């Protein structure tokens, strides 16, 4: 029984790790912390695997574990330490669009964790208010208010006059993954 459980968990996680890691990276805005978050979330998922495997939507269940782990971790003060890295800063080509993109990225990074999580769930995972509330374990009203506050904070950070498209269009053929709540891979 335990072996079956472990194999099932391993098979699932092997397929989902890249997508979960990308989601963790968006939440943390940092690959190093994303890996820490993913590690913790995978361990927590193992603990709850019997329930996750039986869930109507295992992907949504595991995503909720990851997001809640992120919010929980970020409540703890240690995560507010300055993060030192030997990675070079991302090179940004001169130009208004790129500068605005960097400004927006900086503004997102400065958002409180719950607001950032709400925005990632709404605008990357394409979840509606109820689905985001399920993922975060809070009420739909909280999702609405956190979304509004997050967007307001971003607008304020970006300054007056912000409102024109600044980023290159995404590849519409880019592969979809678990973080968007789609059906598992075969």
């Amino acid at each position: 029984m335990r072996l079956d459980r472990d194999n099932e968990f391993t098979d699932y996680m092997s397929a989902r790790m890249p997508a979960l890691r990308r989601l963790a990276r968006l939440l943390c805005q940092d690959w190093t912390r994303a890996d820490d978050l993913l590690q913790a979330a995978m361990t927590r998922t193992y603990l709850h695997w019997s329930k996750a495997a039986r869930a109507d939507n295992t992907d949504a269940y595991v995503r909720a574990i990851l997001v809640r782990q992120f919010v929980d971790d970020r409540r703890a003060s240690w995560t507010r330490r300055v993060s030192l890295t030997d990675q070079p800063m991302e090179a940004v080509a001169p130009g208004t669009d790129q500068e605005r993109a960097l400004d927006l990225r900086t503004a997102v990074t400065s958002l409180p964790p719950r607001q950032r999580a709400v925005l990632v769930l709404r605008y990357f995972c394409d979840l509606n208010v109820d689905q985001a509330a399920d993922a975060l374990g809070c009420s739909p009203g909280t999702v609405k208010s956190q979304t509004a506050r997050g967007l307001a904070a971003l607008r304020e950070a970006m300054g007056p006059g912000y409102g024109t498209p600044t980023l290159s269009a995404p590849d519409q053929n880019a592969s979809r993954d678990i973080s968007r709540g789609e059906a598992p891979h075969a």
Partner: protein
Amino acid sequence: MLEHDLSELFESQAREDPPPTRASLAAATRRGRSRLRRRRAVSIAAPLMAAMTVLAIAVVGTLLTPTSAPTRAAQSQSRRLPSLSLWPLWLPPGMHVTSALAYHQHQENLSITKGDSLAGSIGTFSGPCTASQSKLSCGKTSWGPLEGLAGMINGFRGYWSASGLLFEWAQDRWADVQFPTRPDDLRVARHLTMHAPPIRYPFQLTGSWPGAGVQSVGSSYVHGRAVADAITLAPVAELNPPVTVPFQDIVQVDVGPVGSTPPCISSGTHEVINGYHVDVAWIDRHGTDPIQDVCASDADGLLVRSHSYGTRLFASAPMVFAHLRLFGPDPAKWPATPFG
């Protein structure tokens, strides 16, 4: 428009080429399995890290090397040992306790095997808990789903979970018993004693270490004798509750027979510490503080290693190794305390 830009920002970030990951599925499975057995909190790592970070900074000036005049209170605290609070007087046929890990505050786990396979476990944890129809909640941690009442066990109410039997064996002290069948769970639970066999230590730490204490004791059971095979040393303020992962700012001492695995790392430097030939190596942890490993492959008939995690340590791995007194391979000659 902002929403559109935000969506595009996230999309562009998601398309970035990721660096090699430090996350490990194997490690998650291993840690999850271990925690599942112990039914221990899965969410304490982060707060613990917070506490460790703050307290390690706070204590770094007061810990350090062995001193000659510790206060009585500090010495008492630093020499308090985690011990096993429960021991099975009955196990299903063919099963044996093979190893145990004890922390302070009655948190421990006994691993029980049949042949070479893990067949059962007994875990304990402390704290006020409340049971609802669906789960047992203990502070921030919960166990569940509960699958019904298991009746009274030694005067306390027991609950079935998906993996075993949960019951309060003393006020605010809980046990989690997991065996292949529920009748086995019940019978083991009803035959637990609070008198575990005393643990013998193949080494002692000499000198006074007023700022540090034993955080956990790992032991193994051979021919009915309990012998320590690993102890973790940490600042006194860090002893409770147990640290999970990743290890940080601790020194661990492992001892086993010559030839034990993992072997010493021979690619490091070769030195003589405390009269023993040792290999000293640094192990990269890919982005976090490296591990320093000091290992003697044959120290009076034992493989002995001290390894440190983190940089804000109360003592280095070589310093701890330099203060080890070894007692050879015969457990009959081993003392009952790791402090000498």
